């Protein structure tokens, strides 16, 4: 369980995350939604120790994450940022191999190679695993990074807009894989999404942020409705049922 307690972050004089408290339940997919600049990435960065909070704390199974050793934390929580820039030439396989770094520090064991193969397979990258990253399309690159995080094999997986650059087919594929990781392997996934329909269809819980504040936090069924979404996005979004899924038809909303 990850408990975020009264966390605040200022950039200059402006609070971009303000007194947010959320509990991430294990064995579930939790989606973070909210408009651009709401503070979703900042919040995720603080949870994963990429950024220090100004006040408040983050507890991982009751332990303050600041007290955990970097190496130990890396075996339990993985984060993928919204954008990734690498200034050396790497192949997909080399990148994914880095996911095993917390365990083997660059000296890959047979078990590591198995995990790498598995992660490549998950993301459908086996055929192109020896291609260099700078030879890939945006979506292929994104899948390579997700594959690295999967190879890291952590209990918690935090993903900041992983569907960036992906086509519909691969978006669906990745959401299904995340679902599988949660349902079959008992992992916990936190994911920032802009397409609320993916949040609606695939996540167990939704956390909504707006202007740095928490505005909604609850099971998906309680958040995906016109009133709640109005609070988050200031839009009138009709919600329709389709094959047991709630679909938000936001294309023509005011």
């Amino acid at each position, binding site marked *: 369980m990850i408990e975020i307690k009264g966390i605040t972050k200022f950039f200059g004089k402006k609070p971009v995350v303000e007194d947010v408290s959320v509990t991430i339940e294990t064995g579930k997919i939790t989606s973070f939604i909210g408009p651009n600049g709401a503070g979703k990435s900042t919040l995720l960065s603080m949870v994963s120790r990429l950024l220090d909070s100004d006040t408040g704390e983050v507890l991982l199974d009751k332990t303050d994450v600041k007290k955990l050793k*970097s190496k130990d934390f*890396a075996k339990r929580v993985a*984060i993928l940022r919204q954008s*990734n820039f690498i200034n050396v030439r*790497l*192949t997909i396989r*080399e990148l994914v191999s880095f996911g095993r*770094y917390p365990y083997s520090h660059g000296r890959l064991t047979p078990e590591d190679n198995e995990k790498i193969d598995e992660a490549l397979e998950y993301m459908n990258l086996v055929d192109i695993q020896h291609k260099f990253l700078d030879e890939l399309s945006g979506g292929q690159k994104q899948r390579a990074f997700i594959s690295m995080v999967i190879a890291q094999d952590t209990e918690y997986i935090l993903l900041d807009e992983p569907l960036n650059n992906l086509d519909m087919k691969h978006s669906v594929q990745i959401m299904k894989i995340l679902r599988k990781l949660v349902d079959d392997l008992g992992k916990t996934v936190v994911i920032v999404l802009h397409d609320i329909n993916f949040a609606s269809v695939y996540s167990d819980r939704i956390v909504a942020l707006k202007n740095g504040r928490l505005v909604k936090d609850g099971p998906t069924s309680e958040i995906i409705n016109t009133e709640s979404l109005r609070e988050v996005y200031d839009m009138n979004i009709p919600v329709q049922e389709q094959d047991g899924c709630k679909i938000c038809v936001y294309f023509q909303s005011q």
Partner: protein
Amino acid sequence: MQNSIKKTNTIKILCLVALAILSIAGFLFYNIQGNFSYAFPKRVYRVAAMIITAIAIAYATVMFQTVTRNRILTPSMIGVDSMYEVVQTVIYFFLGSASVFVVDRYLNFGTSIVAMVLFALLLYRFLFRADKYPIFLLLLAGMIIGTLLGSLVSFLQVMIDPVEYLSLQNKLFASFTNVKSELVGISAVILIACFIYGAFLMRDLDVMNLGRDNAINLGVNYDKLVLRVLILASILIATSTALVGPITFLGLIVSNLAYQFLVTYRHSILILGASLISIIALVGGQFLVLHVFNLNTTISVIINFVGGIYFIYLLLKQSKGVAG
């Protein structure tokens, strides 16, 4: 495919080793005249100093460029080695040549290193932490700081007692023709110590290629690693500056040649390659200058000239967005 790259890298490294050995042998034995037992040890000392310098600069530059995530700035170019002059001048100015900080060679060296590390850290906090400044701004800041330090040095030197000044000048004007042979032994020890310590950082440095956030995600203690690398790089630059004086552009040339020549992200290989290229450039270069072109100049002048041009080329390449 990966295997074939590994194989070509091995071949390339072996070629570099051969060239380096050739350069060293040429420098040691070519046209040795007069009393062998007098001339030879002198050459050995000079070549040892050059090798130590070559490796120290290559090693420091590659590590520094990885943690600062740039391939153009080097510790020398932002003035870390001018800090050596500043420290020496300040010591002479305030304490005099009879002070224990001058007489005790180790204390003197240690003081310089501490000051250089602090300076590097300060620069790092202001320049690199923000991560967003364009390289030109960093360069400009580096140049201004370098000029400032230079002016400070000359200002203090003008006011120093002339006798003291001579002694200071002797200390500062190390060069390839005036190698501080008495420092070769201790420099070698420092270099080896840095290598042993640095060996533990190589893998973490490899991960740093993925950027700060991914490195932290993979369990690298980022702040600690940056601190360690800055300290290590400062010690190495201090060593080479004390030994043969500043060579501003050597690091830039050899690191970038190594990045281009060896297709790898592995620092153990990159540093090995850069060190070999560095030895070839210094020792081989000096050999050519002395015996083939019969020029009465030192290799550092030529390296700074070639390096300056190469630097401009890299900058232009980067501004076109083609930089690798």
